[in-house]
């Protein structure tokens, strides 16, 4: 009697039969159970007594279905070739435990299989089929839901995203004392549209600021989109091509809507793979703009001389961890190394590396599956040993998942090491171009400030110095006269209320002295007839029949009026250069 099958199991099998393409079919049919893949998996190396971690064993759980439902011999004599179907929801749960909890889809076994069996690809397919019947780790469900509903995998709201960009823009302007640094949003017709991982908004906004600084100093015409800015794609991890297509399409459409020429993908392994290498296939779209990793962009800026870097600013020993997704699945091997050699003084490889590197153990969505964290950290021993052997103080990676995975294992295995991304190192090594100083309107002139109040002398002195003047000051008329004789100022600001000898007396002395009769004087005084009944400057001028001062300003001083007056007076005396 035929065994009955649960509704979910039935749907799973129906989906499986539709989903298998030629590449998957070949991977499912070709395994000869030679076992060469066994010790290429980090799970096996750290669980030496448990064969259920072996790639061939894990693959067989899916292969058995293929044999049971699509292979001749399996259909006729299933026990002979190990064919077995799934019947119950419990069967699906057990499959879930393997495809989500015992494999990070790192593809290392695929590259080490003599037959070319690509376990990572059909393991992802099995994940997608399980997700289609609602069988998945809770964390995967939550993240996938956020990406469907809110448009990014961390549920970042638009106001938080835009607020963070604004915040980072202000930080940058303050850090570089340059209000021209911007993080443009939705600017049309830019050369570069820059997308990021929502983790950057939520936990690591500094990377956004650093990238913005690099774009700014490279003189790039760039923007970030207000929609479709999340380059990450949980469709890669949950195996759901529909989600993968929808998310990728959102990014591509944002670039098209802004008429961007190039999509630059921030340092994120799965984001890069999803957007650059898988997205067009899931979304069934042909892409008519360029797409590249920000690693390539930064490297190009340095090579083209658009930014200058000083590698001595990164002098700690650095090693590089290849992200499985950007390296083993997209071929990004050499550019990060070339860039590292340009921005740090002591780069050392870890072994093995490039296509043979071991997974950070946080890949394949593992960071969102907390129920498997103990397994993950146990398997991370391989990576920890690799890191330790380098003796490096910093491990650099171009992937946010790897950052989290490495951070976790470094803490777990108590390694003395930091995790950084290339953007951190490049930004740190940036040689910021010195801006040519703006021509100061009063540069080259010397002004004498005569005032008995020290605060006023300092205040006026600062205003004039900011305009490029040389400033000397004096607290009374006698010292003022001495300064006039010694310093030969181009202009004097004169307080009228001075100790011992008043300002009006000094003014009269100057005007009757042919040597100083034309020396410009701007009276800056707070006197009133009530406060200083003895001083009647206008009456004094009339009485002595001497010229009016070149300017007359009352305290408190209006800065604009002061500068306008001083500039005008100097210009009138034909000394102002502009």
């Amino acid at each position: 009697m035929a065994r009955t099958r649960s509704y979910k199991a039935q749907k799973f099998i129906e989906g499986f039969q539709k989903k298998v393409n030629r590449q998957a079919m070949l991977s499912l049919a070709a395994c000869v159970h030679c076992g060469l893949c066994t010790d290429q998996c980090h799970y096996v190396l750290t669980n030496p007594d448990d064969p259920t971690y072996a790639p061939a064993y894990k693959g067989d759980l899916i292969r058995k279905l293929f044999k049971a439902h699509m292979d001749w011999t399996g259909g006729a004599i299933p026990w002979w070739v190990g064919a077995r179907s799934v019947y119950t929801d419990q069967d699906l749960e057990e499959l879930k435990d393997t495809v989500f909890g015992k494999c990070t889809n790192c593809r290392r076994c695929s590259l080490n299989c003599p037959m070319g069996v690509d376990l990572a690809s059909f393991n992802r397919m099995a994940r997608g089929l399980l997700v289609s019947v609602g069988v998945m780790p809770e964390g995967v469900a939550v993240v996938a839901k956020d990406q469907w509903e809110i448009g990014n995998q961390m549920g970042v709201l638009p106001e938080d995203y835009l607020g963070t960009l604004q915040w980072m823009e202000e930080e940058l302007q303050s850090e570089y004392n340059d209000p021209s640094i911007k993080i443009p949003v939705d600017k049309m017709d830019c050369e570069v549209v820059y997308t990021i991982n929502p983790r950057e908004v939520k936990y690591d906004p500094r990377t956004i600021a650093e990238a913005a600084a690099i774009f700014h100093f490279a003189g790039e015409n760039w923007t970030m989109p207000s929609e479709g800015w999340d380059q990450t794609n949980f469709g890669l991890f949950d195996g759901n091509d529909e989600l993968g297509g929808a998310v990728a399409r959102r990014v591509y459409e944002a670039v098209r809507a802004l008429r961007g020429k190039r999509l630059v993908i921030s340092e994120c392994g799965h984001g890069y793979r999803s957007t650059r290498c898988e997205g067009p296939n899931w979304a069934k779209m042909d892409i008519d703009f360029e797409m590249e990793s920000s690693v390539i962009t930064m490297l190009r800026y340095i090579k083209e001389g658009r930014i200058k870097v000083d590698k001595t600013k990164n002098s700690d020993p650095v090693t590089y961890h290849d992200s499985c997704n950007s390296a083993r699945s997209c071929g990004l091997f050499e550019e990060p190394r070339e860039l590292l050699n340009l921005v740090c003084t002591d780069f050392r490889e870890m072994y093995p590396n490039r296509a043979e590197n071991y997974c950070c153990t946080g890949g394949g969505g593992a960071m969102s599956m907390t129920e498997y964290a103990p397994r993950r950290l146990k398997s991370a021993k391989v990576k920890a040993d690799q890191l330790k052997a380098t003796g490096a103080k910093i491990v650099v990676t171009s992937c946010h998942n790897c950052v989290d995975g490495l951070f976790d294992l470094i803490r777990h295995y108590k390694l003395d090491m930091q995790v950084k991304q290339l953007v951190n190192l490049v930004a740190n090594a940036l040689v910021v171009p010195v801006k040519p100083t703006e021509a100061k309107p009063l540069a080259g002139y010397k002004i004498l400030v005569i005032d008995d109040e020290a605060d006023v002398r300092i205040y006026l002195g600062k205003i004039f110095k900011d305009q490029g003047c040389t400033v000397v000051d004096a607290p009374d008329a006698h010292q003022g006269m001495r300064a006039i004789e010694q310093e030969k100022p181009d202009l004097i600001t004169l307080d009228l209320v001075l100790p011992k000898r008043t300002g009006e007396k000094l003014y009269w002395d100057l005007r009757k002295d042919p040597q100083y009769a034309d020396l410009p004087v701007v009276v800056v005084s707070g006197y009133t007839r009530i406060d200083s009944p003895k001083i009647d400057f206008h009456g004094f001028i009339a009485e002595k029949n001497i010229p009016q001062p070149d300017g007359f300003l009352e305290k408190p001083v209006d800065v604009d009026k002061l500068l306008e007056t001083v500039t005008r007076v100097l210009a009138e005396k034909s000394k102002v250069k502009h």
Partner: protein
Amino acid sequence: MYQASPVLRFAEDQLQVAALLFMAAVYIIKIGWILKFPAGRDRQPTTAGPHTNARKGAWHSLLNIALPWEMASTRQHPWFYVQFVIFHLGVAASIAMSFLIPYGPELIAGKVAVLGLQGLFAAAFVVGVLRMIRRISDPYIRAISSPDDYFSLGLLIIWLGFSFLAAPNNRQASEPPLMAYFFLTAFFLVYVPFSKISHYIYYPFARWYLGKTLGYRGVYPVRRGA
């Protein structure tokens, strides 16, 4: 002059031809079956640098089996790779011998040729036995082994044993081993398409597609540090 028995003549000729035709027919059907599955394709612009492309990747992948230094799995297990080579050469030589004995016996009549073949079959036989011991004793391999895995390997070990005995092609003195060899060969040819031994049909396809994808993405040929 010695005349081979009609049974042996049938086993080495008509039976082989019939078995081969059957195998070829099943293989043609099998290839048709493979091609019935839609092939996935890479729609995105390539990420390969100037050093590679899809075609280079595919060829590299196909030839991968002859480049043991290319994969960590073979590089780290050179003895395993040597076993693989011996075993597959033994099988290939035995298949060739099944054609040579009836249709070109003079080509393997010399003492050196016979000894060479026997040496190869013996080595392959020993490798087969070692592989069987590994399959039974290694918990990782045992966990993934089906009855077909044991039977296919056992079949090949026995077949290689009879290949060793049949290699001298001494019909007067050793007709029974020759007959056993040819009957086993015929059975082997008929059984292969339904067993794991048919992996060599999948091999070129599986490796071609993997290599094409990885070449297009700049991963194949594999680059690794010193």
